[in-house]
């Protein structure tokens, strides 16, 4: 067993390092008469006692948090094959540029004439995203993918009202990201789920049936879908929706599969969010924040949030005069630092490089599919794009579930894939390698997964007991969810 990449070391809580009277500071001698806070603050802000405050030195604090940081797994450490999350490498050039003082130290209330460069950058990014998506315009404000979804659906709602055709239903395939129905409900719609075809794709007959009532505002669909399969009938679906006065919302979480190859605008999309922290390599998860720009077709341009950046000759301005706008969706102009990073990525790759990125993502996913399809079952064998979804049905025959496989991967030093999603696949293992890694890392992952498949056949107990090399063994996730302990107390040790 190769546990060299595991993390066997434990690190307790900082309270364990506490020693009475130890401090991490030195104060200069007092130059004024001392005041007794027990008198000056009494009855106002004085707490009788501060319980359990750790008494530690500077080096105690530094080592504690440094060690914790070493227990983390990140894209800087190795393959991070979380399907749908697109955990790609964050190029250091992005970071370098985002830290330029002229960008990093801007104040959002500076007058336009002092921030022409920043406005130009936002304008350039919008132009790039327009070119990539084939849509009419883009708002950069939303702070994450789900926020972008909400922004998009609020525009759909505004457009329906404006056309004097208020509609209450949003159609969503059963393979969708959970954020889609949540967004639709939050935007005031009722969700109707559409069952996928046996190939896992959008069912046009079901779509036609649901459109009959005339109450459908939009279809929300991910392209390629959450199985990593392209929706071959997406343009037909768009035409059917438009004929009924409904909109096509494309969830752009998987845009990285076809950048430079296909355009949502050409598919007939009316609105689409773009996760800069997925496709365009800005930091993700704890390293965020995210950014979820929304691209719209001409039909929705007038509802875009304010302000938009407009160019007049060599001057860039923030335009607030948009009477039909849904208003602001975020303080100031969105997560500007992420916009800088995304534009840096787009510019450094260029048109050909972006296309090569998408092709690399698809190639890597198919390399993994080929490497694992003898050992793991493919519930939907259609052509994979940037991710591949296996299930645990073969391993289940030996009493091993997807979650056991995921835990065992930790012993081999890899972050597990996405588990139990999409919901139409029981025991799903959804693998998205991204284009970031070379063949050596992919081979190491395939070897680990194949070794685990062998263990499932020969020694299933070993897999069910994993992980063995991590700082903590398998946690009681049920108890953690049912009765979480959210605050440390000495008595809870």
């Amino acid at each position, binding site marked *: 067993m190769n546990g060299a990449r595991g993390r066997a070391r434990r690190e307790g809580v900082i309270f364990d390092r506490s020693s009475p009277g130890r401090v991490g500071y030195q104060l200069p001698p007092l130059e004024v008469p001392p005041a007794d806070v027990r008198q000056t603050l009494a009855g106002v802000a004085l707490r009788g006692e501060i319980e359990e405050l750790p008494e530690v030195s500077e080096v105690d604090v530094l080592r504690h948090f440094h060690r914790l940081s070493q227990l983390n797994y990140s894209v800087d450490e190795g393959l991070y094959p979380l399907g749908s999350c697109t955990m790609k490498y964050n190029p250091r050039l992005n970071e370098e540029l985002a830290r330029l003082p002229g960008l990093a130290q801007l104040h959002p209330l500076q007058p336009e004439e002092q921030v022409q460069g920043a406005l130009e950058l936002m304008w350039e990014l919008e132009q790039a995203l327009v070119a990539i998506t084939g849509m009419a315009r883009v708002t950069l404000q939303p702070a994450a993918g789900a926020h972008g979804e909400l922004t998009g659906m609020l525009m759909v709602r505004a457009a329906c009202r404006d056309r004097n055709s208020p509609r209450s239903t949003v159609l969503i395939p059963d393979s969708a990201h959970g954020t889609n129905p949540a967004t639709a409900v939050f935007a005031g719609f009722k969700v109707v789920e559409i069952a996928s075809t046996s190939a896992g794709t959008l069912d046009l007959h079901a779509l036609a049936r649901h459109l009959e009532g005339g109450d459908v505002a939009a279809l929300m669909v991910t392209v390629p879908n959450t199985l990593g399969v392209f929706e071959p009938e997406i343009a037909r679906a768009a035409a059917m929706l438009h004929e009924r006065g409904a909109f096509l919302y494309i969830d752009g979480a998987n845009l990285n599969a076809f950048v430079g190859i296909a355009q949502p605008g050409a598919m007939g999309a009316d609105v689409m969010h773009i996760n800069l922290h997925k496709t365009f390599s800005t930091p993700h998860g704890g390293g965020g924040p995210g950014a979820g720009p929304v691209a719209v077709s001409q039909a929705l341009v007038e509802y875009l949030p304010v302000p938009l950046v407009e160019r007049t000759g060599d001057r860039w301005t923030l335009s607030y005069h948009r009477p039909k706008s849904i208003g602001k969706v975020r303080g100031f102009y969105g997560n500007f630092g992420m916009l800088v990073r995304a534009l840096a990525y787009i510019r450094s790759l260029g048109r050909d490089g972006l296309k090569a990125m998408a092709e690399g993502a698809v190639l890597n996913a198919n390399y993994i599919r080929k490497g694992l399809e003898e050992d793991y079952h493919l519930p939907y064998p259609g052509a994979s794009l940037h991710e591949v979804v296996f299930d645990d049905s073969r391993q289940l025959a030996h009493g091993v579930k997807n979650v056991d496989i995921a835990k065992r991967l930790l012993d081999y030093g890899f972050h597990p894939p996405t*588990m*139990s*999603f999409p*919901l139409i696949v*029981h025991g799903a293992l959804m693998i998205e390698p991204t284009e970031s890694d070379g063949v050596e890392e992919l081979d190491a992952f395939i070897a680990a997964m194949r070794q685990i498949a062998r263990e499932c056949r020969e020694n299933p107990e070993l897999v069910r007991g994993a992980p063995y090399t991590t700082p903590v063994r398998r946690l009681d*996730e*049920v108890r953690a*969810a*049912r009765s979480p302990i959210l605050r440390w107390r000495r008595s809870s040790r």
Partner: protein
Amino acid sequence: MSYPEDRRYAKSHEWVLVDGNTATIGITSYAQEQLGDVVFVELPAVGSTLERDGAMGNIESVKAVSEVFAPVAGEVVEVNGALEARPELLNTDPHGEGWLVRVNMAPGSDANLLTAAEYEAFLAEEGAH
């Protein structure tokens, strides 16, 4: 697993036990098995109206959050408050103590539900899929 014959079943894996105008609704043993350990149950408010096949609540397990669909229409008259503190009842006793809601059922809205035998046949078919 044998399913109680005193009630009817929906293909979306809920059961309904009708007593006069009152229908008790829960999820089937198969459903809880698929969900895995349940950690949180969100139920409709007493007094709210359920549409047949409309979403009536959410069940959160360690794996995922899943919607529960109303197998009959009617007005909610009682919800199983015990599930708030003990969501695991859905796993340990889905056909009994793990019931979800009681509704004042809209007459006839339980038409075309499956018998226990039909539901078991449906599950066997699903398993073959």
